[in-house]
């Protein structure tokens, strides 16, 4: 199952709720303001890193770029995708839950 999250983890519980309910083996895609969760050295970095043990985390590259988050500022192991990759994730997972 693909989970999308679009809220900054510093302002909303969406990511936390998503991680609490996502089953092991899920794909989790960070879009819009949720890409701030992909940054290293933040208050939520350890939460994201521990989620990476059971799920695969992706971040939408155009949203990272728009916010000036380069790969040097990111948690290593987070996968970058474009809108084409977003579509591909929606195809390969049999359902999508948007944690709006």
């Amino acid at each position, binding site marked *: 199952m693909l989970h999308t999250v679009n809220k900054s983890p510093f302002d909303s519980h969406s990511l936390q709720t998503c991680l609490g309910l996502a089953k092991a083996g899920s794909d989790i895609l960070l879009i819009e303001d949720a890409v701030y969760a992909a940054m290293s050295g933040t208050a939520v970095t350890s939460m994201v890193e521990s989620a990476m043990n059971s799920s695969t985390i992706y971040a939408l590259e155009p949203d990272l770029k728009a916010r000036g988050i380069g790969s040097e500022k990111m948690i290593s192991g987070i996968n970058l995708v474009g809108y*084409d990759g977003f579509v591909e994730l929606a195809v390969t997972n049999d359902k999508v839950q948007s944690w709006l």
Partner: protein
Amino acid sequence: MKFSVMVNEGPYTHQAADTAYHFTRAVLDAGHEIFRVFFYHDGVHNGTRMTTPPQDDRHIVDRWSELAHDHDIDLVVCVAAAQRRGILDKDEAKRNGKDGDNIAPGFRISGLGQLIEAGIEADRLLVFGD
């Protein structure tokens, strides 16, 4: 594969309408089908032709209209949500005694049943909002 897209926020305030548009484009570019784009909540504001953004900004409404024109996409605005927020087509304007309509080309106003159908008919339903 058949996709439906639901847009729950208006243009410009929130990025959701942009993400939904770019996703929809990418679905078509990948050779998949868009069964329907359904606009709900403040998302109905994506469908007013009165929108006139500054010239150096993207025109979110025209972008949807062009997509509908070029790819024959069904853009549906929820009637109940639209009436609350002043989005009208000719029939709705007449029925409610309003002096004009404002629906943008390529959009149509219909009921929530269209959303349920979009969920049933499409292989995937993606929701974009706040």
